[in-house]
């Protein structure tokens, strides 16, 4: 894995967690998380939540070491937790208090003095987009508003690193977009590093600078998002009709094209490949609707897995 210039916010070394029942959740995971927004992707059961719990110092690894912001997770749990904000995956809000009261209280538990806790609770709720609603009981909120309160309570303690576990859980498409924009903004404008655990690749791609993919407790790949989506030496060609004819014509002219659904994938030799494709299409008078150089897709990482169109695992 390439080392990045700024120090890693999270480092794990041969991190292994075997639960008492014999289930291996993490299996020798060694990875560095660079500052910025990092996606932590993997199927359900890949070890994302276990990794987060170890980082929070809530469970001890069976073997190996994890460091957060330079502090060892096993020995400096409290110190680390004062620098972290955590948004759990599941519902975790009481219904019978107002968002302001709840977030202020958790600010106090994060170690803020009373007046600071009040100010920061109001600010955090404002940043996540809850204004007058914050004086209402949480029980009256929509799912989207609850997710925002969960994010606000993670922000209230002025963390240097946020761990967000499936932040778009239960949200409708508009809510997802709003939440993702909010996370991207926190990462870019607030100067807080963020780790977003998700099984939704499509979402992660939109907001992350880096990606850490794990599978079965092992590291699949860790890199910048751009390196995942580099242009490939493949040309994608789509025609309205006559796919087979075009494939045959291309073969006759020495280009071995493969089909993927209704798209022809042509190996890109050089600029003249474009000319050959154009000539073939023209010769057959086919309606051409797409001709572009293909990018690698994050999903290719998980080709073996059962992924549906939106990059969601079918588990």
């Amino acid at each position, binding site marked *: 894995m390439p080392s990045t210039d700024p120090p890693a916010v999270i480092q794990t070394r041969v991190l292994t967690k075997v639960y008492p029942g014999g289930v291996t959740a993490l299996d020798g995971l060694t990875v560095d998380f660079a500052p910025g927004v990092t996606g932590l992707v993997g199927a359900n059961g890949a070890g994302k939540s276990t990794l987060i719990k170890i980082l929070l110092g809530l469970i001890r690894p069976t073997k190996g070491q994890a460091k957060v912001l330079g502090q060892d997770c096993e020995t400096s749990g409290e110190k680390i937790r004062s620098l972290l904000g955590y948004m759990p995956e599941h519902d975790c809000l009481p219904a*019978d208090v107002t968002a302001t009261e709840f977030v202020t*209280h958790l600010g106090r*538990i994060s170690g803020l003095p009373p007046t*600071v806790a009040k100010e920061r609770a109001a*600010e955090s709720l404002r940043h996540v987009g809850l204004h007058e609603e914050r004086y209402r009981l949480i029980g009256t909120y929509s799912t989207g508003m609850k997710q925002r309160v969960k994010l606000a*309570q993670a922000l209230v303690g002025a963390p240097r690193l946020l761990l967000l576990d499936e932040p778009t859980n239960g949200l409708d498409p508009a809510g997802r977009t709003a939440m993702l924009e909010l996370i991207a903004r926190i990462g870019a*404008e607030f100067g807080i590093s963020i780790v977003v655990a998700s099984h939704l690749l499509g979402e992660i791609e939109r907001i992350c600078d880096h990606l850490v993919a794990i599978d079965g407790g092992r590291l699949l790949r860790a890199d910048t998002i751009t390196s995942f989506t580099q242009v490939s030496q493949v040309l994608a060609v789509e025609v309205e009709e006559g796919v087979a004819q075009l494939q045959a014509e291309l073969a006759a002219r020495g280009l071995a094209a493969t089909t993927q659904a209704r798209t022809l994938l042509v190996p890109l030799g050089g600029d003249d490949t474009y000319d050959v494709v154009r000539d073939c299409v023209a010769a057959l008078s086919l309606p051409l609707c797409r001709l572009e150089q293909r990018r690698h897709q994050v999903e290719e990482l998980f080709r073996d897995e059962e992924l549906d169109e939106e990059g969601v695992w079918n588990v």
Partner: protein
Amino acid sequence: MSDSALSPPAAGVIHDLGYRGYDGPRLGRGQIIRALTWHSFRSSFGIGRGVKGKIIPVLAFVAICLPAFVNAFAVARGNARLFGYDVYVPSLRVAVVTIFLAAQAPELVSRDLRNRVLPLYFCRPLRRGDYPLAKYLALTSALLLLIEIPLLILYLGTIASAKSGGAVWDQTRALIPGLGVGLMWAVLMAAIGLVLASLTGRRAYSTGIVAISCVLTFILSLLLIQSEGGTTATSTGARIAGLFSPFTILDGVRVWLGGNPQVGLVANPGRYGPLYGLLAVILLAACLGGLAARYRKVSQS
């Protein structure tokens, strides 16, 4: 002025100050525990909750203070003080403590279990045992207020009508062991209430568990005491009949430590007194241990 200046600011006006971090001082673990204790203490009286949350604490206070007020008035009109500081009105105290515990112990612990708020506490700079510790301190303090305030009302009402300094001194000397007994009650009953309430996140169930445990064991002990000849009996059976409920254990300890055996819930334990003391300590240790173990498990899940 124009209309626009008088109308409230439009919903879209947001003065974005940008994000500001915080580099100021942070509280240590001790102060965080104190903050959580204070918060829990307040919520054990329904403060910071809706009106519904305040009903039972208020009723409990009114019920337990009423005899003290009435007696204090009676003393002011020249009558004697009827209620002892160490036993007060025993059956009323048992009933009020049971109701308060059954209603408010779940408020402190089951609520957080039910709403799954605990991960939000454990991801903050607290240690595993700090959460139950804070809850225990809060409920103990709340019970202490509930039990001691009527004693103080009774005391103040009585010394207000005292004729001499000696009478005030007598009252004070009688009050001190009474406050000690109250402390004993609060320390043990809070532990019992919390460990039982923390068994489940279902509020109704945990209220039921606390109430039924307190009431059934108390009735069992009362029946045993009755069947052995009542609180004045001196048989071995009568002496140990109070060992089956926390309230009678506490009263047995009171008599063992020198309290008046003529009043109260149990027969004089006599030479079995140390057994009551030992059982009280074991019960307390078991409940606190159970509470700590409960939250060690929760924090991992």
